[in-house]
């Protein structure tokens, strides 16, 4: 119920901004016009959305897996941190257009280079937040594990990991929300399908209404992913307090 209300309110606000703010339609088309694109080009949008969804899904799966594994590896092997952290940060700070040709060179024009990009964007929030969580564990538990002769891997997987799940969840939530951006950046590398491609192409030639229709689909995907991740993660951690 509530999300619907929020959506309605947002759309009303958007319409109002356009009309009252006197924003020209080629800069921000009002929802009433964007809606026409949904009706008229629904199939086109669906087709491109399917591509983007594949990229997002693959990017999320890979990004979460890689980010999680990296955080675990850094928590397990102290040495790795000194080397891994700067690398990870660099992987974030590098703008995509600079390394896009490199990716194409190595991964080709197919889905692989796009998924690599999406993965890169999603990877860092997860790895960083999860690693933070893994470091921040009640020292009493570690003492206990030590007295129980727990092998380091057990300590990592059975104590640090569950204790860090809330932090991991924070990372996943951020990642779910940025995943659409990840896919778009992926499409940067060279694409002939996908919502990002559609949007850039339309924007590049001033076809704003269709571009914003694609944008709306992207936003819906992002928001849906966020709340899906939120719900799943909360269910997976019934012991974590969730005071409003």
């Amino acid at each position, binding site marked *: 119920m509530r999300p619907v209300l929020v959506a309605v309110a947002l759309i009303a606000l958007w319409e109002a901004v356009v009309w009252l703010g006197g924003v020209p339609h*080629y800069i921000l088309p009002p929802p009433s016009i964007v809606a026409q694109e949904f009706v008229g080009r629904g199939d086109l949008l669906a087709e491109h959305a399917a591509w983007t969804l594949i990229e997002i899904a693959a990017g999320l799966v890979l990004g979460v897996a890689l980010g999680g594994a990296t955080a675990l590896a850094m928590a397990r092997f102290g040495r790795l941190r000194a080397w891994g952290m700067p690398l990870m940060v660099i992987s974030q700070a590098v703008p995509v257009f600079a390394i896009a040709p490199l990716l*194409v*060179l190595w991964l080709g024009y197919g889905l692989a280079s796009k998924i690599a990009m999406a993965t890169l964007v999603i990877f860092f929030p997860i790895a960083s937040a999860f690693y933070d969580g893994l470091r921040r564990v009640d020292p009493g538990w570690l003492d206990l594990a030590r007295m129980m002769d727990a092998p380091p891997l057990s300590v990592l997987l059975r104590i640090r990991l569950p204790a860090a799940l809330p932090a991991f969840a924070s990372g996943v939530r951020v990642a779910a929300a940025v995943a659409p951006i990840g896919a778009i950046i992926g499409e940067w590398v*060279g694409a002939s399908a996908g919502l990002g491609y559609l949007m850039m192409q339309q924007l*590049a030639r*001033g076809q704003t209404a269709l571009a914003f229709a694609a944008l709306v689909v992207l936003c819906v995907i992002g928001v849906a992913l966020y709340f899906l991740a939120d719900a799943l993660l909360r269910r997976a951690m019934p012991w974590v307090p969730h005071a409003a």
Partner: protein
Amino acid sequence: ADKVTVLLDWFLNPDHAALVIAKTQGFFEKQNLDVSLTVPADPSAPPKLVAAGKGDYAVSYQPQLHMFVAPERASEALPLVRIGVLVPQPLNALVSLANGPIKTIADLKGKKVGYSVAGFEDAILAAMLETAGLTLKDVTLINVNFALTTALKSRQIDAVIGAFRNFELNDLEIEKLKGAAFPVEDFGVPVYDELILVARRDGLDIDRTRRLLAALREATAWLRANPAAAWDAFAAYGGKEVANELNRRAWQDTLPLLASDPASLDRTRYARFAAFLKARGLIKRDVPLESYVQEIK
């Protein structure tokens, strides 16, 4: 058939008409070529990828070619040769709103000029300004990226450089605005080829290239003869996202500008433009012309 990859410079648009028609109407096939067209998002990437062997031909711009083959450091030079042309004249223009403050180049003094990074806009603009006794210091250059006409329409800036006369004017017209275009070649910039085809220099397959160009020549002739059918074919190939009003209008304006003979080469254009860029400081080295243009007879 020979598998061939052509990297476009930019999203699919009527500038690529010959390529698309050659593909859809079987002219490539007739030359025993199986061509796939790939779209990048960054126009500076395709030549590099072709130079690196990822793709056989790239759509590029003549000024871009000059800069890519003659960077300051020889080790960074792209081993490219121009093997053909799609649009044998400049499309680039300085565009402002017809009812706006810019009636002549001289009116640009103290104004904001937008551009989308292509690397050479400052040189072009500087040359144009000099025809009115101005210099780059008299204007503010702003990179507006994708939003050339949007920036113009919203009156955030006063003129844009790097607009294509066959597109941006139509774009304005669709919004019921009239644009004024100052073609660069009319204001002190040497004539050059806007859209060219480049290939990797080493191991260039002359025979295959000849067949590619032949297919393009046939396609151009065919689309000039059948403009309506050609548009339908183009629209069908590009899909709904391409078959829009803007591209339909641009199609009309673009057909006459396409190269009748994609293999043709005017060497003096290249020598002259290289000199122009060198004088403007955009290239610092002289590179022998024959190392980066090749005429396919």
